[in-house]
């Protein structure tokens, strides 16, 4: 039970501590300043969907929290993680009517296609004239549409794409492989234990139970290890160095009893292992990140301050 709690706490820690004052990413159109109608929103969303797998998000901001839009823009983009991870092909089209600022924030990966000069052209010849007339909704819609047009003009997405896309599945594969590896390791240990004479004396049922307990317990430790490091690709040696002391510490009681009395009954240990079995099952998938679901969320892209901005 205590291990279960520790495991939960460790996993929970990975999800706290990122509370900044940015608006929530509610979809491809985030209308925080309430300048769009429902119809305009859904129309614009459809336009922005066309450019998948690139991620273009249109945002109207109620407030910039006292910052300039250049400072706010890239931080917001990073916070949401717009664009695919490692490709960084996200674009934010921002308008802040109250501060009278607007900006096109371009992720690293699209800076070749949507150059500063092009962004600046969209900002100055499309968005600013509309915004000056007070048509903030049109400024945002036309600006975002123009961005989509520029991106579409690039017929073949650059060659880097194909190679990079493999990035995240590769990580998952490494995770699966290492999981299998530890599973095999567990089985190996189980077989070694099978040879143990104290073990041979225990009943068949107990032997099977212990075998599974052994495997599941290792996968649980591996879960915690993954949760702490936040990655499935930690090095094997470090893992072993975690595993061995933990195994020793956890089994210290049993080892002590075993040292005192070599005939220490096996049954007892199996019974005490009951709670371990339960805790190991679900947690593992947490390291794989979220998948599926119809809702829109950032792919983990980053921004480096590319793009153009304007005041109106």
């Amino acid at each position: 039970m205590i291990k279960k709690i520790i495991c939960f706490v460790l996993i929970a820690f990975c999800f706290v501590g990122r509370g900044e004052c940015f608006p929530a990413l509610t979809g491809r159109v985030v209308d925080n300043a309430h300048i769009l109608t429902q119809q305009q929103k859904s129309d614009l969303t459809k336009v922005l969907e066309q450019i998948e797998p690139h991620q273009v998000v249109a945002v109207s901001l109620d407030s910039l929290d006292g910052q300039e839009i250049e400072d706010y823009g890239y931080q917001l983009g990073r916070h949401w993680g717009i664009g695919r991870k490692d490709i960084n092909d996200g674009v934010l089209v921002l308008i802040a009517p109250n501060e009278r600022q607007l900006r096109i924030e371009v992720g690293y990966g699209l800076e070749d296609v949507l150059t500063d000069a092009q962004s600046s052209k969209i900002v100055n010849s499309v968005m600013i004239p509309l915004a000056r007339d007070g048509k903030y909704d049109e400024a945002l819609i036309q600006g975002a549409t123009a961005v989509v047009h520029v991106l579409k003009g690039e017929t073949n997405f650059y060659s880097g794409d194909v190679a990079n896309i493999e990035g995240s599945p590769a990580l998952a594969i490494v995770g699966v492989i290492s999981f299998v590896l530890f599973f095999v390791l567990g089985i190996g240990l189980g077989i070694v234990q099978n040879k143990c004479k104290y073990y041979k004396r225990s009943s068949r049922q107990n032997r099977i139970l212990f075998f599974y307990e052994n495997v599941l317990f290792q996968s649980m430790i591996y879960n915690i290890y993954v949760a702490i490091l936040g990655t499935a690709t930690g090095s094997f040696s470090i893992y072993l160095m975690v595993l061995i002391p933990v195994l020793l510490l956890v089994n210290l009681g049993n080892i002590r009893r075993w040292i005192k009395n070599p005939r220490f009954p096996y049954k007892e240990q199996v019974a005490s292992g009951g709670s371990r079995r339960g805790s190991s099952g679900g947690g593992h998938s947490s390291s794989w990140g979220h998948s599926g679901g119809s809702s829109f969320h950032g792919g983990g892209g980053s921004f480096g301050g590319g793009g153009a901005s304007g005041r109106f």
Partner: protein
Amino acid sequence: MNKNKKILVILASVIALCVLAVFSTLNSVVGLDEKCNASWSQVLNQYQRRYDLIPNLVATVQGYATHEQDTLIQVVDARNKATQTTLSPEMLDDENAMKVFMQNQNALSSALNHLMVVVERYPDLKANENFLSLQSQLEGTENRIAVARKDYIDSVRLFNTKIRMIPTKWIVAAFSEMKPKATFDIEEIKQEVPVVKFSR
């Protein structure tokens, strides 16, 4: 015999835990160090981008603003001076080198800033497509420089905090030669970003 075994087990666990702690500390410091180097490379990258823009910009301005030779020469000189001082990631712990490097970059920034103010007087130049494109690229580059610098400052802050903290400090001193890295004031950024106004 029994007692010996027990002690041995406990001793092994303690040693294994200590070794593990040292390893993980060193690994995390190395990770932070690499992050500093990467963000410094990004800063250099963006400064390089600015160097690359200047010849084109100067050539374009020269064609229109014939009376601004002094300003243009200042920009070219500042660029030449800045390109001469390089600061590789291995030299990041050198406070003085960083100071000189930043002084030169700031001089270039203010020369460019001055140029951009001066060109406001030439309506023909400001209508030139090529110049507008260069101007927006320069603005974008200055913004990228600001972001890269902030990222560098942030990663150095993490690194310096980490290697000055108590157990880490000892471990780093014992097993590696890493030193705190040089950084610069964030205030400089605000002074150096040129205010490039768009034609209305």
